[in-house]
């Protein structure tokens, strides 16, 4: 399994590669694409992007110097139609700059790129929300070599997908940046904080009404209140445990470390570390965490030992025990055959 890390500058290649990254991915947002009204016109993130084709070329060269590859994300859900040709030109220029893969979310864009027969790998973004074999097969027909699975998918479902489509590579989330909703079906912006931030944090109160209008019983109110409180607790975990790190600087929040053995058995080829917008140190320590667990998988250590090791890494076993920090709640659902 290859470790796929987010990168924001050619200067970060060495640190991330030394920590264990095998592949890099980045965003690109040149000045001509910056608009006042749309902070992320080319990819799902408005921050952490390279800002020129020259920087992209430099990052690709640096990655290649270290024997790594670079993918660039054009994974906006859709694009302004009047800038379609401009978009395709920018993508062609990115390929010319030396990137190894394009991460695409819009299947219309994937269709258009397939027609151009570019000499670059195409990866289907998690934003495409591929939850089944037929979607993966469609992406493959359009030229995708890899499908990046969405966040909200189980290990068992991943296992089934990998088994049914052996010709396609699958990449799974393993650390950081949870989403409350399906990213590919979330048509909002992460607004500046004064305007509300992400919609999942912007919703303050929920007023329940019974369909038909009859009043709720006190017991119903209480059950709904308890559920809301539990939801808030889950949100806290989903948003990096209140956007914190451990005392030793390790990232808190959505994590699939203890699922790595199962993802390996499932046939996943790449482990994705999310968080293009995070500081370098957070990304570097994330890569190192994943690399430590992967090393044990490669060494064929018993799965139970690897799980125990992964859950002890942050020194907060109660957070793992909550289940709310997990990308994969039942990582032992898939086991090695032996």
């Amino acid at each position, binding site marked *: 399994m290859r470790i796929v890390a987010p990168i924001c500058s050619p200067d970060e290649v060495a640190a991330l590669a030394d920590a264990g990254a095998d592949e890099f991915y980045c965003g690109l947002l040149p000045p001509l694409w910056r608009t006042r*009204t749309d902070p992320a016109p080319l990819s799902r993130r408005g921050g952490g992007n390279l800002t020129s084709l020259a920087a992209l070329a430099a990052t690709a060269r640096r990655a290649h110097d270290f024997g790594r590859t670079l993918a660039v994300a054009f994974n906006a859900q*859709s694009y302004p139609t009047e800038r379609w040709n401009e978009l395709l030109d920018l993508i062609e220029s990115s390929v010319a700059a030396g990137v190894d893969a394009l991460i695409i979310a819009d299947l219309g864009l994937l269709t258009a790129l397939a027609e151009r027969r570019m000499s670059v790998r195409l990866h289907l973004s998690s934003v495409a929300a591929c*939850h089944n074999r037929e979607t993966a097969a469609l992406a493959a027909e359009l030229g995708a070599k890899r499908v990046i699975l969405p966040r*909200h998918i189980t290990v068992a479902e991943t296992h089934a997908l990998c088994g049914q489509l052996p010709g396609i590579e699958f990449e799974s989330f393993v650390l950081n940046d949870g989403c409350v*909703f399906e990213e590919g079906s979330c048509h909002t912006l992460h607004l500046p904080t004064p305007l509300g931030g992400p919609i999942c944090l912007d919703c303050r109160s929920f007023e329940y009404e019974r*369909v038909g209008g009859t009043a709720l019983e006190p017991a119903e109110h209480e059950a709904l209140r308890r559920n809301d409180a539990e939801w808030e607790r889950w949100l806290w975990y989903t948003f990096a445990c209140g956007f914190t790190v451990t005392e030793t600087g390790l990232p808190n929040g959505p994590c699939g470390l203890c699922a790595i053995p199962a993802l390996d058995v499932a046939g996943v080829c790449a482990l994705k570390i999310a968080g293009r917008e995070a500081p370098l140190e957070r990304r570097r320590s994330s890569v190192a965490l994943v690399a430590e667990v992967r090393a044990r998988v490669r060494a064929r250590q018993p799965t139970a030992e690897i799980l125990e090791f992964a859950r002890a890494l942050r020194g907060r076993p109660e957070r793992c025990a909550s289940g709310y920090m997990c990308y994969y709640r039942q990582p032992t659902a898939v086991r090695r055959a032996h």
Partner: protein
Amino acid sequence: MTELITATPAPIDCTLAFTHIAALRAYVAAAASAQPNPRFLERVGLPGWGRVAQLRFGNEFCHRLLPSPAAVRQGLQLAARHGFDFALALPILTDAGLVRAERLLAEMPDGAEVAVNDWGLMRRMARGFAHLQIIAGRQICRLLKDPRAPPASGAGPQRGWANPGLAALLMRLRARRLELDIPPFARTLEPEVPGMRLSAHTPFSFVTTGRICRLGNLRQEPARRFAPEHGCSRECLTYCVRITRRTTHADSLPLLQRGNTIFYRHGDASRSTLITALVAGTIDRLILPGDWHADRSADLLTG
């Protein structure tokens, strides 16, 4: 807007969408007993603009709400008995969901429409269900439509459905109609796509949805709570939810939630955009929520 409304074009075909078979049954019963003409178009600001031509069954957003084949058969019979066309709506699906969906497709008669929100299901239908018409649902039509963004955000170009790649793919997969939500602050819609007809949902556009349902976890055991594979007791059929935001501006639109999906109710800008598109003929069908809305009344349509 009043002037536009009085310039009524030919009646527009409307689809009434139902998640719950009981709601569909109740609507049909009301229509059959010759109760007063449903005021649904009046309530969404389009009085006298259309007629109900089609009843749709199934939920666009949640695989936990996939109906049973028996419920689909019942819906078909009810619709046919009262002279309505019958269509099915299906959400994004897992592999297990695809298997269940295929059982439902097998119940559908020749020529029936299916609103599809999953690319994989669309591929499957294009290859194996030639007798059915594929409608690309509103999750296929990905628009930026954040009702919290300042209105200026909608004044510029919209990201959209009219790009050549999407049109080519939809054509390849046999879809000839696309459903869209009206953006919150847009003044115009994208140009028409040759060969593709457009329907619009009103009066709610969806904002975000996903596999994890807040309300659906009400009775879940702790080990499964808020995990992708959590089950539910279909609490969404019992409760609707009004959302209050932490931050608002003067033009904020009301947010509502049913089940796993947040919607905004159209304001004047969306209504005006919709009316312009209806008059121009860009949009030739409306889809209204028969039961999947957040009005306290059980029935948005006749209440």
